[in-house]
């Protein structure tokens, strides 16, 4: 009988405990030191709230930014909500600012407020307790003029305009300009010590000065240009290897093959080929190669 009585009492105690039924599983009110504040200081409060059974905080019921009373303002209200198993976790950050000029150290109170909670049609609330803190005066009770005959602190000096960002921007623009100008100089072959980039530019100039009667010289000029790019004499059967080392020139494959056939006919054939249009086509090929050379 006694044993049953103990079991029954234990069950009653368990039933009375509120752990599983309350909508809140955790409530923490984190506050800073409650002393040593001065007029105009900010005070930061953090509230951590965890709910169960899908109970949610009603944000409309939170304190609003603005004046709480004549001496206390709320400057910031930030709520961070995360979902946890069975409910939600809220981190509420409140930034208060006190404007009070006590004649001596004074105990003040940030008023209590309720956090409204709801789940479907059911409402509940969690009270955030009032918080007491002491605020000190900044100056002695009797106000005297300073050496310059003033009661107050002087004006703030107008600051000079900051040019750091503009200077950085100027350097960045200079770097872009110089690097792009350098790139263009390289492409157009104006950089000393990089002759290969000017191979077809020089060839084009020389071709421009030749006439239709100087086909052999023209062909020689273009051969020399191709040899210079290849680094060794280039023949038609080596074109595939040449393209592997200089892929852009593959785009002019048909014209280059025409050039080698024409050159072979000129230099090695018994019958002299017609030179009609050869120089013009050669100039076009040189211009195409010049474009490829420039990228």
């Amino acid at each position, binding site marked *: 009988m006694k044993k049953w009585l103990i079991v029954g009492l234990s069950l009653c105690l368990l039933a009375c405990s509120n752990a599983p039924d309350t909508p809140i599983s955790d409530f923490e009110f984190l506050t800073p030191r409650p002393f040593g504040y*001065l007029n*105009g200081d900010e005070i930061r409060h953090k509230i951590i709230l965890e709910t169960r059974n899908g109970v949610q905080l009603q944000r409309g019921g939170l304190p609003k930014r603005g004046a709480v009373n004549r001496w206390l303002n709320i400057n910031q209200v930030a709520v961070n909500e995360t979902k946890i198993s069975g409910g939600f976790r809220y981190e509420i950050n409140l930034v208060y600012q006190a404007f009070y000029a006590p004649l001596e150290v004074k105990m003040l109170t940030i008023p209590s407020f309720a956090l409204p909670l709801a789940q479907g049609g059911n409402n509940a609330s969690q009270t955030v307790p009032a918080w007491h803190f002491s605020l000190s005066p900044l*100056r002695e009770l009797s*106000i005297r003029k300073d050496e310059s005959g003033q*009661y107050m602190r002087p004006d703030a000096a107008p600051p000079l305009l900051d040019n750091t960002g*503009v200077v950085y921007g100027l350097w960045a623009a200079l770097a872009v300009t110089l690097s792009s100008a350098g790139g263009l100089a390289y492409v157009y072959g104006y950089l000393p010590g990089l002759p290969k980039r000017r191979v077809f530019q020089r060839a084009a100039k020389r071709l421009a000065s030749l006439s239709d009667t100087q086909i052999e010289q023209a062909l020689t000029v273009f051969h020399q240009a191709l040899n210079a790019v290849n680094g060794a004499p280039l023949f038609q059967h080596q074109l595939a290897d040449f393209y592997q080392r200089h892929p852009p020139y593959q785009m002019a494959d048909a014209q280059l093959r025409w050039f080698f056939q024409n050159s072979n006919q000129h230099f090695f054939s018994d019958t002299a080929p017609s030179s009609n249009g050869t120089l013009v086509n050669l100039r076009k090929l040189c211009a195409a190669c010049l474009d490829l050379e420039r990228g």
Partner: protein
Amino acid sequence: MMKLIALWAALLLGSVAMLVQGWTLVGISQSNRAITDLAAGKDVPLEKIINAAPEVRLARAMVFKKQQRYDEALATLNLILDAPDPALQAKIRYNLGNIYLHLAVVKTEAMAINEAMPLVALAKQAYRQALALDSQFWDAKYNLEVAMRLLPEMDKISNEEESPVNQKSQLWTTVPGFPRGLP
């Protein structure tokens, strides 16, 4: 071909950006010279002020204040209250509060209490706004306290003080003036 176009575009953009940044740098340098000149008490032509940066106009307002041209100083500061930089805005509001407080002290010493009261209220408002922008603005804290001592606020902290009996004493406590202490 695309590479060439990209290089020309980069050169064009870089050159334009260099011109713009260079022009801005010259403008900043001129503004800073104007601020330095104004702070040294030198005159700066009006055309350099009208469209100048808020910092220059703040310097101009301080010159007005030194010359005791308070209305012009207040008008100049009111025009730049919404400066985009919060730190500068705090300084503008603090200096605005200083002008109001200075005028209030002058009026109080001349026993023009009714004229002093709204000026102190405006000074307190300006200091509060400065502190809302920068809560570590020590000079603003100090001068707000000066203003609050000059015109104590009516907000009562304890319930007893809010009783109707004590409300009668409000008239007395709102008369501006500093506690002088004992000799």
